[in-house]
Each structure stands twice: as structure tokens, then as C-alpha cells.
């Protein structure tokens, strides 16, 4: 190794040694520095620990003395510390008995509590946990808890602390408010009026009635202003009133206005708006109550139309109409009345009716006025002089007029001009009277004639009998025969006269009303009249009892039955009396198996003096009397017959006339 190399190595070695010493020096300095830092840290640590202890006890004091209940629990909900307020509130003392808070939670809040604890563990704090709990005496309390986690030195949660607040009363008040509010809501929602709350033109609340009226949903309405739903024509008036309200001139107002519905149609409504003011007297809201008057308006319109219709009818009807007040002053007349009376309307209205219209019976109108005041309506006729002095007859239907309170304020009269009818009626009455007189004369005449005719007849009959008795030996056969013929003719004439007499009374004499048992009547007839031996009179069913004139009823049945039994040529004759009952009539049929009546006589036989047969006893009066009696009892008579087979007489009697009242 040459010296140059040795020198080089020596220098290098020297540098390495120096470097080592330098490094050692640096390290020593670093050690010293570390030692100082450690020492300083220890000191600081001790100071901090003291500070922590002080603060902890200070905090303990704060929590123990805190007014609200304060509880510390471990993560299994066991209470590890609580202040006196908590002991008092919960009724438990964790020093005396172990207390697990999870046991206190009301069953309704278990799930909520689990969620809340979960969130506490995740976030580290829990604010405004609200639940019901059981305290020791068993009562239920509402509590609000604000809670946070407590961590150990390695940041692991070990416990939780919480401050409780008893909010039982608060919740009760809240519940009460809620109930009252829901009651109020029910009232508002069920109100038949639409109710809207308005703030500065904006709709902020609307009940269901208004949503139905307008067709908008509440959410839609809440995005709208009053302007959206108002009819532009009514808006100015509404705005003016609201302005006055804001100026304090009005507290509320009502208007009739229109709203626009969602479907574009229009709603007529009466709107009442009131201001809701705050303590400073400023308007907070406007409350609008909206009443649907669409129907009311429609009704008013229809009343108007009706009124117009009736006015037009009154004006144009052919009946005169006049209204007077209680003093008989004319209030109104129609054109027809003017025409009837001959006065102009302006001549009538405002005048006293009795001064203008000259009623012939002076006392009639005042007595009718008294009736009107008593509230009675009636109809009557008057004879009156019109403006020209011509006599007119009016049929007046009068009725009282009432005001809205039902007081009589006058009367209303409807007049029908019956002058022409009246003249006719008077003519008719006169004619009837004349007719009656002439009828009476005729009847008396018939009576007298028949009576006066009968007495010479009787004399002729007596004289012819005497002539026969005295000269029967002298007279030859022809003479005797002629005398018999004479007597027969006299008897026949007598019957004729008797028939005329009966016919005249059948028409006119008053009808008696006694009980008439038809069964007895038929029996009597069977005994009275001559019935040939080969003929039988049969009544197959029981007949009714009538309330009628006994003589007339006997005459009726006797005439028909008498005809029937006489005209039977068959070996065995049969006459039946059949009866049936309809609602309004008794119906009878008298049926025989006799010779029958040819068709052309079916009408004729009921006319007077019409007889078909050549039998001497037939006068041709009997059936005309029958028809008269049936007619007087409101019935009909007709015949069915075939020659050679028989005849059936049908007739009816109106029950109304000849029955007992039910």
C-alpha cells in the first residue's frame, strides 16, 4: 500500500469518525430535546387532569341541581345516575332499586323508542324524543327528552344522558286544541255555506261546500286569488268594499255577485265578508261566506215570469177584474172591466166603487163587504147601471184580499157579464110559468072532462040495463044484441076515460115514498088480475124492497104482467119476473112465451093510444103509463120480442131515486 493511498484512507477514515461524532452530537441533542418535551407533556397532562376533575364535579353539581329531571343510563337502559328532580318525577331512586328505563315506555311508543335509540347510537344525539311513560305510581306522563351519548377514552359509547321535560299538560292542551279544531273543522266543512279564508286577495283556505259549488279542488283553490273566481263585472264593486274595509269604514259587508266555476259556468251567490283583525286592529284575514242563490234567482225569475203571465191573462181575459180597498176605493181594474162598465181605467182607479157603479140592490154591496172583511168568498148576481145608464147583469165572484201578514186589506171581484143569459133566463122563466099554468089547466080539464064524461056514461049504462030488463021480452034478438053491444061500448069508453085519468096523474102527481116489497106486490097482482088457467106467473128469485110510491110501482108491474098473461095462446103459458142488480140500477125483465109483438110495433107500443091487439079490454094507454113511471124513476124501458115465441120487457129503475139510503 503506497503512502498516497494510506493518506487517502486516513483522510476518509478521519471524515467518517468526525461524521460519527457529529451524528452522536446530533442524536444527544435530539434525546435532550425529547426528554424536555416529555417532561413538559407530563406536566401539562397533570394540569389538564385537574382541570377535568374540577369541571366534572362542577358539571355534576349543575346536573344534580338542574330543575329538569336529568338521567344517565348505560346502553342497556339501566339508570346509573339521576338527579333529585328525576327521582321526584319518576318516583324511583336508582340507589335503592335498579331501574331500567325501557320498562317505563308506554306500549304505544315501543317501536318509536327503538327507532329513536337507533338514531341516538348513530348520530350521538337525540332531540325532542316525545313519548308516554309510566311513572312509579302507575300514572301515564308525556315526556320530551333531549339526549346525548357519553363516550369512553377510546371513543366508544358507554352511556347516554338525557334531560326530561314533563309535557303532559302541554300535550293535554294540544289535544284539547286539536279536538276543538276538528270540531270547528266539522262545522266549517259541513256548513251549507261556502267558506273561504282570504289573505290579501289570495285564497288560503276553502271548505268542501265551496269546492263543490265551484268545481275546484281545495288545492287548486289555494293557488288562486279571488280575482280568478270572480266575475269581472262584479269585481269593481267587491274591490271597493274591501278597500273601505281596509280603511276601517266597514267591518263586514254583503253583496250579491257571480262566481266563475271551473267548467266556465256562472254561480249566483250572496257573499258576506267579515274582517278578522289582529290585536293591533290590522286586518289579518277576510272570511267570506258564500251562499248559492242560483235556485233562488231561478225561482225569482220564474215568479216574475208567472206574474207577467198572470198579468197578461188578467189584462186579456174576458172577465172583468176589480180590486178595492176596505174603504171601497178602486185600486185596480182590467180592460175587460172597463169595457163592461163603460168607464175608462183612469175614471175608475182612486174612486169609490159604489159612487160610480149604480147597483140596483143598494144593500147588497155593503153586506158583501162585511163578508169580505170576515174573510168569506162567495158569488152573487147584481143588476147594475153602466156609464150610459144601461142595465147590465153581472155575476160577481168576490174574495177578500190579504196583505203578507194575512190582514184583509180589501176585496177582489171577478165579473162576468151575464146580461144576455139573464134576459134569456127571464124569458125562460116566464115561458115555464105559462107552461105550468097551461099544463095545470089541461090536467084539470082532463080530470073534469073524464069525471063529467063518466057520469053520463054511467047514466047511459044504467038506462041501457033498465031498457034491457024492461023490454027484453019485446025486443027481438037483434035488438037485444045491439043493447049488449051498446053496454060493451059504454064499458070500453069508461075504461078509456079511466086510462086518460090515470095517464094524466102518472105524469104529475107527487111520488110517495114508502117501503115497497116487490115480492108482495107481485103476489097481490097475481090475486087481483084475471089470469087464464093455462098461464103461470113465476118469480124465480127474491125481489128487492124499494123506497117508492106503492101505487105507481104496482101500476108499473101490473100493466106489464096484465098484458103478458092475456096474450098467450100456447097450451102452457109462462110469465117470469127476473131481476138483476147493477151498481146504479135495478134491472127487471118480465118475460112471456106469448104471441109476441111484431118488430114495427116495438117503439110504437109505448106511445099513448097505440094498441096492437083487437081485444076489447085494450085501451092503448097502459104501456105509455108504464114508460112514464119508469122515466120518473130515472130508468129506461125497451122490448125484445119475436112473433110466436114470446116477449121480454126490460126496464131499469135508478137506485138513487128508489133505494134506501145506504
Amino acid at each position: 500500500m503506497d503512502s498516497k493511498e494510506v493518506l487517502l484512507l486516513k483522510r476518509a477514515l478521519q471524515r467518517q469518525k468526525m461524521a460519527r461524532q457529529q451524528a452522536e452530537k446530533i442524536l444527544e441533542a435530539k434525546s435532550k430535546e425529547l426528554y424536555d418535551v416529555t417532561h413538559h407533556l407530563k406536566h401539562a397532562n397533570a394540569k389538564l387532569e385537574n382541570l377535568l376533575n374540577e369541571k366534572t364535579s362542577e358539571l355534576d353539581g349543575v346536573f344534580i341541581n338542574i330543575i329538569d329531571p336529568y338521567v344517565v343510563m348505560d346502553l342497556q337502559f339501566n339508570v346509573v345516575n339521576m338527579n333529585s328532580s328525576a327521582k321526584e318525577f319518576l318516583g324511583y331512586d336508582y340507589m335503592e332499586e335498579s331501574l331500567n328505563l325501557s320498562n317505563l315506555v308506554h306500549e304505544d311508543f315501543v317501536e318509536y323508542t327503538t327507532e329513536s335509540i337507533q338514531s341516538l347510537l348513530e348520530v350521538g344525539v337525540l332531540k325532542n324524543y316525545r313519548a308516554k311513560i309510566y311513572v312509579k305510581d302507575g300514572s301515564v306522563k308525556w315526556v320530551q327528552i333531549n339526549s346525548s351519548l357519553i363516550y369512553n377514552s377510546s371513543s366508544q359509547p358507554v352511556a347516554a344522558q338525557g334531560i326530561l321535560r314533563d309535557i303532559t299538560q302541554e300535550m293535554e292542551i294540544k289535544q284539547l286544541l286539536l279536538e276543538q279544531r276538528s270540531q270547528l273543522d266539522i262545522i266549517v266543512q259541513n256548513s251549507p255555506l261556502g267558506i273561504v279564508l282570504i289573505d290579501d286577495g289570495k285564497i288560503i283556505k276553502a271548505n268542501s261546500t265551496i269546492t263543490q259549488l265551484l268545481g275546484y279542488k281545495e288545492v287548486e283553490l289555494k293557488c288562486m286569488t279571488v280575482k280568478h273566481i270572480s266575475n269581472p263585472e262584479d269585481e269593481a264593486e267587491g274591490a271597493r268594499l274591501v278597500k273601505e274595509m281596509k280603511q276601517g269604514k266597514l267591518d263586514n259587508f254583503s253583496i250579491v255577485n257571480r262566481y266563475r266555476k271551473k267548467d266556465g259556468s256562472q254561480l249566483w251567490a250572496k257573499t258576506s265578508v267579515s274582517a278578522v283583525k289582529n290585536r293591533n286592529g290590522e286586518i289579518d284575514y277576510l272570511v267570506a261566506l258564500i251562499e248559492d242563490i242560483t235556485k233562488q234567482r231561478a225561482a225569482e225569475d220564474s215568479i216574475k215570469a208567472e206574474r207577467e203571465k198572470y198579468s197578461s191573462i188578467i189584462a186579456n181575459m174576458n172577465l172583468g177584474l176589480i180590486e178595492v180597498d176596505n174603504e171601497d176605493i178602486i185600486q185596480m181594474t182590467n180592460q175587460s172591466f172597463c169595457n163592461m162598465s163603460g168607464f175608462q181605467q183612469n175614471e175608475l182607479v182612486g174612486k169609490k166603487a159604489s159612487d160610480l157603479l149604480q147597483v140596483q140592490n143598494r144593500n147588497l154591496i155593503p153586506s158583501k163587504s162585511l163578508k169580505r172583511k170576515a174573510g168569506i168568498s162567495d158569488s152573487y148576481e147584481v143588476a147594475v147601471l153602466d156609464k150610459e145608464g144601461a142595465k147590465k147583469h153581472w155575476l160577481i165572484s168576490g174574495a177578500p184580499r190579504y196583505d203578507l201578514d194575512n190582514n184583509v186589506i180589501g176585496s177582489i171581484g171577478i165579473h162576468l157579464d151575464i146580461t144576455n143569459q139573464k134576459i134569456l133566463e127571464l124569458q125562460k122563466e116566464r115561458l115555464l110559468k105559462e107552461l105550468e099554468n097551461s099544463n095545470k089547466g089541461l090536467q084539470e080539464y082532463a080530470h073534469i072532462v073524464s069525471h063529467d064524461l063518466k057520469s053520463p056514461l054511467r047514466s047511459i049504462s044504467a038506462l041501457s040495463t033498465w031498457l034491457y030488463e024492461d023490454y027484453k021480452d019485446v025486443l027481438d034478438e037483434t035488438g037485444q044484441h045491439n043493447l049488449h053491444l051498446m053496454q060493451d061500448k059504454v064499458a070500453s069508453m069508461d075504461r078509456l076515460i079511466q086510462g086518460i085519468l090515470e095517464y094524466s096523474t102518472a105524469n104529475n102527481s107527487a111520488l110517495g115514498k114508502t117501503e115497497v116489497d116487490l115480492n108482495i106486490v107481485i103476489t097481490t097482482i097475481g090475486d087481483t088480475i084475471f089470469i087464464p088457467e093455462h098461464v103461470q106467473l113465476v118469480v124465480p128469485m127474491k125481489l128487492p124492497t124499494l123506497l117508492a110510491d106503492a101505487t105507481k110501482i104496482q101500476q108499473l108491474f101490473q100493466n106489464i104482467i096484465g098484458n103478458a098473461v092475456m096474450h098467450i095462446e100456447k097450451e102452457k103459458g109462462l110469465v117470469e119476473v127476473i131481476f138483476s142488480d147493477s151498481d146504479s140500477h135495478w134491472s127487471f125483465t118480465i118475460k112471456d112465451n106469448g104471441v109476441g109483438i111484431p118488430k114495427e110495433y116495438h117503439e110504437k107500443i109505448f106511445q099513448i093510444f097505440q094498441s096492437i091487439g083487437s081485444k076489447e079490454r085494450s085501451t092503448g094507454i097502459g104501456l105509455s103509463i108504464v114508460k112514464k113511471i119508469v122515466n120518473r124513476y130515472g130508468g129506461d124501458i125497451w122490448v125484445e120480442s119475436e112473433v110466436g115465441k114470446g116477449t121480454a120487457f126490460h126496464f131499469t129503475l135508478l137506485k138513487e131515486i128508489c133505494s134506501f139510503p145506504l
Partner: protein
Amino acid sequence: MKGIIFTEFLEMVESKFGLETADAIIESANLPSQGIYTSVGTYDFNEMVSLITELGTITDIELGELIYTFGHYLFASLGNAHPEVIQSYNSPLALLYSIEDHIHVHVQKLYPDAELPTFKILEKTDTSLTMVYCSTRGLYRLAHGLIEKAFEHFNKTATVSYELLKEDGTEVQFHIVQNG
């Protein structure tokens, strides 16, 4: 400047050019520290400038090239001294991307007085990285060498190009594209 840079630099000179060259540059550089360096100490940067300048004179090699070579050498040395730092990465780009936020933070823990360059990332993809080197020392060629060795460590290669944003080399934009 940290002592480890000096000790490692002299180690490289010694191994590449021999003890004689190492001794020569120390003797002729006229250093305040007299060339006595320990990795835990801190020394004036101008001593490094003197040492490199002397080495350039003796070896007649361009200074930038010398610094670049030192970068190659330094990566292995630092890797040996702190293997856990490199082991925590599985790609060279990830390592480069984390210089500022991770590696330099660890350096600062051990050497609170270290004056470190900054690397500002402009763009990063899975296979490329653009960043700006920024240091009053202007040792961007050292960074160049270190970057290349980082790829080599992960058995990868990369094309590293750079552009001087300032002429004195205190701000240099690197563009690194991993090959393959």
C-alpha cells in the same frame, strides 16, 4: 440540504469513480463542512453544487448527466433505507401520483427542516401522468432519474419527456407515459 443526499452522493462517486475521485472532489471543493457528512445532519446546498461542479471538472461529464445518474443511484438507496414506503404502492404511476401527499409527508415527519420540491399534478390517466416539478434547487434531472428508476423497480418502462417552464430549471413540466 439533507445529509443523506450528501452521503449517498459520495457513496455513488466512490463506487463509480473510486475513492480517489471522491477524495479529490472533497479536497478541492474547499467545503465549510470539510466533507464530513452524516445522514441525520443538514448541510448547505452550495456544498452539493461545489461537489457536483468539481466532479464534472474531474470526470469531464456534463453536470445534468451527472445529476441524472445520481437520480438513478439515489432511488435504490432511498428504497433500501425506507422499503415500506415503496411497498405500499403497486404501480409506478400511483407512487409518483402520491409523492406530494404521502411520501413527502413521511419525509417531513422524520426531518421537519427538510426543504422538499413540490410536484403539481396536471393530468392523470391509467397510463400517463403530467406534473410540474417546482424547486429553487433546479434539480429536475435528479427527479428525472428517480422517475425512471421507479418504473424500473416495478418492472415497467416509461417514456419521460420534460419541458422547462423556467430557464433555470426551477419549474419543469414532466410528461410520463408508461410503455406497454
